[in-house]
Each structure stands twice: as C-alpha cells, then as structure tokens.
C-alpha cells in the first residue's frame, strides 16, 4: 500500500546565503501492506514526523521514491496531492486540528463538502459516522465545548468520512489522558479490523506502538529493522 524507497530529506537552516543542510532522513526503505498497522517509534528529533509528512504529501523528499496505492506520488504537485489525499488517506493530528468556528458536525462534514457531495447525502453519511463513533449527541457542539477525547473522535470521524484506505496518525494520543487513550486505541484497532484500513502511526508511546502488527524504530534518520532494534535494545536497555 505504501512503499518508500531510499527516502532522504534535509532541512535548510540558517540565514539566506549562509544556509546549511541538516539531514533528517538518511535513506529510508519502508513498505506498509494493505490492512496492516505499522507503528513508528523514535525519540524527539529522530525524523519520524518528517517521514509521516512525506507520506502525507506535506513535504517533498530531497531524494527517493514514494509509491502509495500503486501511484508514484513523489513529484505530485500540490493540487494533485490535495486530490490524492482526499481520495486515499485520512490524517489524524496530535492536537486534533478542528476548525474552531465549526461544530463537530461541520468539521466532520468538511471533506464531503470539499468532495462536492450533495447536502442530503452529506447529512446521512456524517450523522451515521458520528453515531458509530458515539459522538452524535455532540454534533452541534463547537470544539471548545468538547473534551480532548471527544475532539479526537471528531478528528477521527473527519479523517474517515471519505472511507480512505489509509489512515496516518501522528502522536494521536499525545493530548489524551490514559482512559481516553485506551478507548482511542481500541477504536483504531476496530477500524482496522472492520474496514481493513491500513494504519501508519507515529508515536513515542510504547502503549500506542503495541497495537501495531509491526513496530519500527527510527534513530537518527535511519529506520532500524527489527533485528537491529533488538540489538539496540540489548545494548541500551
């Protein structure tokens, strides 16, 4: 479903004319199969978020190739990426990223509006999904009137409303308490089972990482294979 081949990325730092390149990703190869949950863990600054930004089309890699859903998206334009994201992937953000002036219903409905779906159909789909996620009674609430867990469910609802085959999540439980975190992880697992959604989750939390069929570790811009990980764990208990 997702194939990353020799992905490298470097940020330009410093003043214009006196810039220096800081490499963040140093040749990442990663394949995520359809219906698989892959969790990427790593310390702050290890490059895991950068990798997710590249998969989500928010950053263009300095070199390497990105193939998602059998399409080479490496050199997609912003417009192509917008269409591709709408049709193939949902994104769950750490801080929920709901539009404050919109209700839970309107935030969830937004991708359907962007897709040009008719109002009646939008209403049916949105209410059904909010019902499934147990937040239908909060449909008319604004984000500021919802708890962290409820906001994250609205975020999930928005990312799932167009039935994407891929769901990207970056530190999805970072703003949740332990009770909400557990419920949220259960929700992700059930979505994976019921909808066969491919999940790529970035986290630094072992509990979140534990829901993955595979867990990979990023260290210093390099993706460590399971064997290397265990070696690392032995060396650094």
């Amino acid at each position, binding site marked *: 479903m997702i194939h990353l081949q020799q992905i490298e990325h470097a940020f330009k730092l410093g003043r214009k004319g006196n810039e220096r390149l800081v490499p963040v990703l140093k040749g990442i190869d990663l394949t995520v199969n359809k219906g698989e949950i892959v969790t990427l863990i790593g310390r702050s600054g290890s490059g895991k978020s950068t990798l997710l930004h590249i998969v989500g089309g*928010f950053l263009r890699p300095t070199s390497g190739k990105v193939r998602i859903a059998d399409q080479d998206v490496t050199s997609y334009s912003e*417009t192509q990426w917008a*269409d591709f994201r709408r049709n193939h992937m949902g*994104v769950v*953000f750490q801080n929920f*990223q709901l539009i404050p002036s919109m209700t839970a219903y309107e935030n969830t409905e*937004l991708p359907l509006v962007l897709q*040009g779906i008719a109002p009646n159909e939008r209403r049916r789909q949105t209410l059904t999904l909010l019902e499934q996620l147990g937040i239908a009674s909060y449909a008319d609430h604004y984000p500021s009137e919802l708890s962290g867990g409820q906001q994250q469910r609205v975020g999930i609802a928005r990312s799932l409303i*167009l039935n994407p085959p891929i769901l990207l999540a970056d530190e999805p439980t970072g703003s949740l308490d332990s009770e909400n975190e557990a419920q949220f992880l259960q929700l992700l697992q059930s979505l994976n089972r019921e909808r066969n959604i491919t999940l790529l989750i970035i986290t630094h939390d072992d509990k979140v990482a534990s829901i993955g069929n595979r867990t990979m570790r990023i260290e210093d811009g390099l993706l460590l294979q399971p064997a290397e990980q265990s070696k690392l764990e032995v060396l650094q208990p």
Partner: protein
Amino acid sequence: MKFKDKLKFVRQNMSKNKSRVFMTILATAMGCSFLIMIASVAFGLQQSLIDDLLQDRNITEIQVHALKNGDTYDNLKQADIDAIQNIEHIKAMSVQRMSQGTTSLGEYQSLNNTQAIVSNFQQEMKAGLELEEGRAPANDNETVVGYHFAKSLTKRDANNVALANEIYNGKLIGETIVFKATEFNPDTNKEVVVGEFKLTIVGILEKPDREWMESALLYLSDNYNDKLFGEELPQANVKVIADGADNVVKVSNELREKNYSVYSVADTIKEMDLVFLVMKIGLIFVGTIAVLIASIGIYNTMTMAVTERSQDIGIMKAIGANPRTIRSIFLLESFGIGLLGVMIGTIVSYGLSALINAAVPPILANVLDGKPPENFMFSSIPITLTLVSAGISLGVAVLSGMRPAARATRIDVLRALRRDI
C-alpha cells in the same frame, strides 16, 4: 466543492469580523458612489443641453441657408429650392417667406405688426407643426393663427391709441379677420399697403415650447406669394425634414455635395457628444481613483483574513482542499464585498442624484438671480453609467482580492498547523 457551499463559507467568514467587513463595504460603496456621481454630472449636463437644443427643434430638421458659389454664398432661388425636392429620404420641406401688416377683427386691431408666414401648410404639418385646436386651412381664404393671437388684439380709442385693458377675449375659430399686408418703401420711407385680405380662422397653433415666447403670427397659403411679393420673391427660410434620424447625415451630406449650405441640430449634437464623451471618460477616470483607494481597503481586509484564517486554511489543505478551491473562496469573498459596496453605492448615488437635481436649481436661481433653464438636470445616471461603474468597482474588488487569495493558496500546511501534525 459546490458553489453554494463556497457561498456558505464566504458568509461564515464575513460574519466573523463584521465591523471590519462593514467598513470595507462602506469604503467600496463610497468609491463606487463617487465614481457614479462625478460622471453623472457630465451625463446630466449633456442631457440638459441636448434637451434645451431640441426644445423647439426637430432632430430630423436640416436648415438650408444658401447655395455655395466658389467662396461666396448666393440666396436660394425658387429653382434651387425645387431642386432639393428630388433628394431621397426627405419627408417634408418647409419654405417660409415672411410678410407683415396689421390685423383687425371687428373693432379689435393688432397691437403691433402681425407677422404672416407664407408657406405650404400641408408641408408645414408634415414637418411637425401642431395645432392646439381647430383644423388645417383647406383653401386660400382660411388661416391658422398663433397661440397668443387673441392677446395681440385690442380696442382703440378715438385717437387710435391701443387700449391695453380691452384685449380680445372671444373665440377665434370661425371668426373672420382682415389682414392688411404692408411693405416698407425705402424711397418714401413709409409703409405701403400691398394688399388687404379677408381670412377665416380655422385653427390655433400649439403653445410655444418656451414659456417666454409669444406667438401671434398667422399663416398664409403659398398662393399669396405672387400677391404679396410679385415676381421678385424674398429670401425664403428653407427647412428640410429627413424621414428618420438615421438619414439626417445622409440627406445633409447630399445637400452639401450639391453645394447647399446646411445646418442640422444633429451636427451640433454630434459635436457635443464628442466633447461630452471625452469629459465622461475623464471623469470616470477620476472616479476610478476613488475606487482604487477603496480597493486598498479590500486588499487589507483580505490580507488580514488570510493571516487570521491561515490555520483553518492549513487544516482544509491537509484534509484535501484543492488550492483552486481556497483561491476561489477568497476571490468570492472580495467579490462579495465589492458587490455589496456596489449595490449600496448605486442606491446612494440615485438618491444623491435626485437630491442634487431638486436642490441645485433653487440654489442656482438665487446665485444667478434668475430662473435656471427649464427641466435643468445637474446629474443624470443612465443605466450604462451604472453598469460601467459597477463593472469597474467589481473588477477592482476582484483584482484587489487576487493577491491575498494567491497567498492563501501558498500557505504551508505544516507552518499553518504550527507543525503540530
């Protein structure tokens, strides 16, 4: 994204900062109103001048003064006048020769000399002469008189002095008058009676267009030419009426080709139109500067809107909003501000125009110490001016929203989300 949904977005966005949007709409309305009002002065003055020019003239009328002969001009002879009739697109031809004399109706006599127009009455009617009452003369013994004819008849005392209070106030139609035609004899330096004619009044001409004009003349059939002038006819006042406004230029040109010296009100209007066109373009240009100043407000409002909504834009882009969609939402918003401004500005302009037209004539009357021209219009807003002004204002509004809209599409998702993703 459907257009209706974009409109909903725009409405929501505009209601987020009502006072700022209102002030921007107000500035646009003022700019648009200024543009309309300043150009409306040119339209109003043009309209007033043309109305004044056409008040007692016909747009299809062509005056033929003389026949060009090298560098000099000869008086028109009857043969020259007859030759004009062969030209195409002529509806009627008025050939008038003037006579004068005294008129009496019973014991009433004309106060001053009566002007008599010797002409073909049928042609005069075709040329646009209208009657207030009665009918056109059917024979040489019948006549039509001017609207104020009765006022010109007074009784005389024993010394033949006119009695100003004894004005004729009876009916005119059906009455017989005696017209004593006179002619000035330069040798004896005296008026000489040329003939005396009994005429029955059968019609009264309509009131002159201008209030200050008094018409006490009478019409005589062109059969009186011989009786009054003999063989040597005096210079005639010749007017040709074209069969349509479109043919005035054609007939005028053909007359000029045949060396006639002509003048038509259409020539003057054409020249005036050119002058006013230049004036209107100039004033619209000046008015557009006001709209451009207002556009700075739109630019500012839209730029602030993009800055304030950068996170919302980032979220929308992250969930798959096309940059074109983002741009069209912002362009629609600046168009909406422009449209509301244009609507308010246009309504205000029509109100101001009516107010100015009502207020300026009395002010002018006081300043000029006299009455301004009748139906004088200081400001006129034709639909073309409204459309041109609306087009300019809306165009400028959209243009001023283009840069902020383009900026919105370039917003970096990661930066907008404060790299929370």
